């Protein structure tokens, strides 16, 4: 009680790397959707 638990650095970095990759994939999908969306909508 009253003290912050020590952060496990390696676990934190691993979790952060996964979050980075997940965010990157989401943003790449948005870009791909815009690209194909524009082409398909003009067919």
């Amino acid at each position: 009680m009253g003290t912050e638990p020590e952060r496990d650095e390696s676990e934190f970095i691993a979790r952060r790397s996964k979050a980075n990759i997940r965010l990157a994939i989401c943003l790449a999908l948005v870009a791909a959707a815009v690209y194909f969306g524009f082409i398909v909508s003009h067919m």
Partner: protein
Amino acid sequence: MSYAETHEHHHDDHDHKPTGLGRWLFSTNHKDIGTMYLVFALIMFFIGGAMAMVVRAELFQPGMQYVDPQFFNAMTTMHALVMIFGVIMPAGVGLANWMVPMMIGAPDMALPRMNNMSFWILPFAFTMLLATFFMEGGAPAGGWTMYPPLITQLGDGFPFLIFTVHFLGVSSIMGAINIIATIFNMRAPGMGFMQLPLFVWTWIITAFLLIASMPVLAGAVTMLLTDKYFGTSFFIAAGGGDPVMFQHIFWCFGHPEVYILILPAFGIVSQIIPTFSRKPLFGYESMVYATAAIAFLSFFVWAHHMFTVGMPLAGELFFMYATMSIAVPTGVKVFNWIATMWRGAMTFETPMLFALSFVILFSIGGFSGLMLGITPADFQYHDTYFVVAHFHYVLVTGALFALMAGAYFWLPKWTGHMYDEKLGQLHFWLSVISVNVLFFPQHFLGLAGMPRRIPDYAVQFTEWNMISSVGGFVFGISQLLFVWVIVKCVREGKKADEQVWEGARGLEWTLPSPPPFHTFTIPPKVDEATAHS
């Protein structure tokens, strides 16, 4: 003040850097990749600048002097493509690579390998583009806007142009994803979004603009490619397509692109003015919201680039008023920069001089933009040198001057040496005088009716063209001084301390100059004093 206490004590343990060519080819270090982006932008600046010199030499007097019309048009087209995609954008990404991780207390970019790939695509893409000069049909000459049907008449260079644009798009999108992931996930503990330096904020917004707009350009040029080689008729009237549709799609990318070029410049200036005014930035939150508002509005103004194609009156009115509305958040920013300086203890080192000239000269470009945004007036100005003067005030005295201000501002941090202040000031004064001699007369030429992208002109335009060309040559030569200042600063100079500038605030200024190869491997703690808000 908050701290990177870790580095001074521990950096020896982990400052192992690779050596030789491999260090640069396979780099995953944000500082090295930032340096590569900046050096690449500088090289491309001189290539694009040489093309501008050809244009100004040809336009020095009426009649055909040095090049044939096709080559002249290739010069204007390639100058624009090189300067936009090869200079301003990579230089902005280079500054982001160097500074964003250090400003937010991150050890590196979120996705370092992708960062390497984002950069190395660029030299490859531009080699492809420049190679078109040696192909059947020559280099692209239909304008950087690539309007069909003219652009589809290009010879063997056409697919190379299209793939270059695709590669540049992929590079920019990967860079943008990396910047967003870095800022969202890698901030030091205690650094909330409203504590981010303005430069970081402008890059978040720019990165989202890139992700939303670059695929639009990629889609448009893919459609050009299939129209030419695969029998589609997206933009071919004979097949049921519409060439004007290309213009709509292109500018749906093109106007946000303008803000992709200028928002990082706003960020740089927002770092420099408070530093040399020795005051916090006035209206931090309003600056953030104004930047976001500008970015949002940029998606609803595209048709002001094409008022003369013929569109319903309601459409023209909508795009005119939408364009005018961008002046409001832009005005907020200019007001805040001036209010920051108000009663500040100002000094005028080279970065501040460039930043101040940015505020004044960018505003001139903004005002001529407002004139162009007025639909009936635009019918007179469209496709004249007035447009050329307008966007060069925005992109040269705006974006480029801000990038130069940033380079001078952060050079001591990067190299560990102070640059030569006298040479820096000489570079500034030569640049600021010559750039106005170069571009201001182009307003008069445009208002008098001189069309753009034409290698010859009526004799009545001679005097102002001569003056403009002289300004251009002086501006071009002055930039060699910039290179000399950088080289000199890398090699020698007074030792720079951590803070470099008396009024500098933020995590990056707590690191040694130059910073060790790896920084913030243990996250710093951010407190109230370091917060930028």
